[in-house]
């Protein structure tokens, strides 16, 4: 904990020194950015925009994770499904995020549906590939056991398959969350009338670096809170059965 604080203090010091060298217009000092965060917070704009972005992140993330898990599980378990789905995956994996976003807006208009679909589609192949890897390494011995004891489909999924996939799901969720929020900002910049991405776009046109940093920092703080209070406790719960090192 101490090392982390020292490291954080060092970052702020470097930032401060940088702002002295580059000038407040290019890199405002930490204090100015903190004041801007407070300002936006007081007017309610910060909460409104953070909320809009967070909602998009949540919906796109959930859709991509659910679809990616189901498709990944099926592809990992069935050879034929793997062969059928693999070319699609390669296309999606290599399609630049920007192309998917622009096409979604062109085809579906500048709508919320298009925005969320574009983000989910960007995240989907990565979630699928990760879960597929997990499904390929499922333990056949436990499968046999479940079959001999005639466990139902739900019992097998919940108690035999999902616990084995948990590390892969966690990895997909981790990398997915950071990817999704970055893409959501681009989607907002290009075609939404609110959200952190939209605000950063406006600030870019006004060359308002203070506001850009203020929104970026506020959002990083939110994601950090989600990681600390949601993701990590969940991981601890899922790993509760592992014998702890003495």
């Amino acid at each position, binding site marked *: 904990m101490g090392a982390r604080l020292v490291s954080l203090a060092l970052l702020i010091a470097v930032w401060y020194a940088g702002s002295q060298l580059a000038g407040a217009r290019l890199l405002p000092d930490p204090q100015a950015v903190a004041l801007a965060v407070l300002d936006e917070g007081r007017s309610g704009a910060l909460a409104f925009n953070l909320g809009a972005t967070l909602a998009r992140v949540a919906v796109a993330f959930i859709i991509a994770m659910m679809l990616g898990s189901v498709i990944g599980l099926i592809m990992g378990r069935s050879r034929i499904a793997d062969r059928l789905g693999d070319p699609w995956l390669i296309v999606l994996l290599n399609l630049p995020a920007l192309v998917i976003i622009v096409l979604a807006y062109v085809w579906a208009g500048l709508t919320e549906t298009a925005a969320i679909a574009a983000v989910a589609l960007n995240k989907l192949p990565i979630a699928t590939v990760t879960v597929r890897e997990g499904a390929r390494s499922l333990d056949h*011995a*436990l499968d*046999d*056991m479940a*079959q*001999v*004891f*005639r*466990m139902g489909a739900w*019992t097998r999924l919940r*108690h*035999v398959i999902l*616990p084995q996939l948990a590390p892969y799901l966690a990895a997909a969720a981790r990398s997915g969350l950071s990817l999704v929020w970055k893409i959501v900002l681009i989607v907002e910049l290009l075609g939404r009338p609110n959200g952190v991405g939209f605000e950063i776009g406006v600030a870019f046109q006004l060359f308002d670096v203070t506001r850009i940093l203020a929104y970026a920092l506020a959002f990083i703080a939110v994601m950090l809170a989600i990681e600390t209070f949601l993701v990590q406790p969940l991981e601890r719960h899922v790993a509760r*059965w*592992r*014998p702890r090192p003495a």
Partner: protein
Amino acid sequence: MSPAGARGQLDLNIKQKSFRTASGGKFQVLGELAFTLGSGEVAALVGPSGCGKTTLLRIVAGLDRDFEGGVALPAHGTLGMVFQEPRLLPWRTVEQNVRLAAPRATDTGLDTLFQVLGLKAHRDHYPGELSLGLARRVALARAFAVEPDLLLLDEPFVSLDDALAARLREELAELVNRRPVTTLLVTHNLEEAIGLADRLLLLSVSPARILADVPVVRPRAAHTAAELAALRDKIAQRLSQTCL
């Protein structure tokens, strides 16, 4: 063919079973092999290592359907199986492992099982916290908790020390005496086979056939040590001849 339909009866009639090797060839594991287990009968399949005992058990369990021949299981029968390794779900406690396999088990039924197998203190432990001996007991508890019509045991006490294996064998015998169940036991340990089974089926090296069907006279307790030793020697001799 014996009349079908008797509860707990197993009819096995295998023509042959082979595996495809990686080089594209065929390797025959089981030859023509047929036997019937009456209701409540305990049979031990005894044979040299690698003769296809586990393959045979997998066929009976319905885990391997790629063979020529047929298996008639007890009608609507419930299977209980103890694998060579405990095969517990590491992320569920001892009690959850048993209950997931046997959702209809009653609390009193489980209490008795855990009592007999010495697992009372371990109900809430995870498998990673158990010794191999305890984990094997959990696997036994799981197989008995489903109240099986057919019990399949695949070398259930392999890689345990002699004293512990002997104790578990006694516990298994007690469980079978409490509730007689048609049982097929795979082992290469003759003491174990004679101690638990009514009938020994001796298998040849692969492709496996049945060499001999040796009854073990009941009640087992009536055997003197000398008689048991003589029986064991007789069977060991037959087995060693076939292996050469």
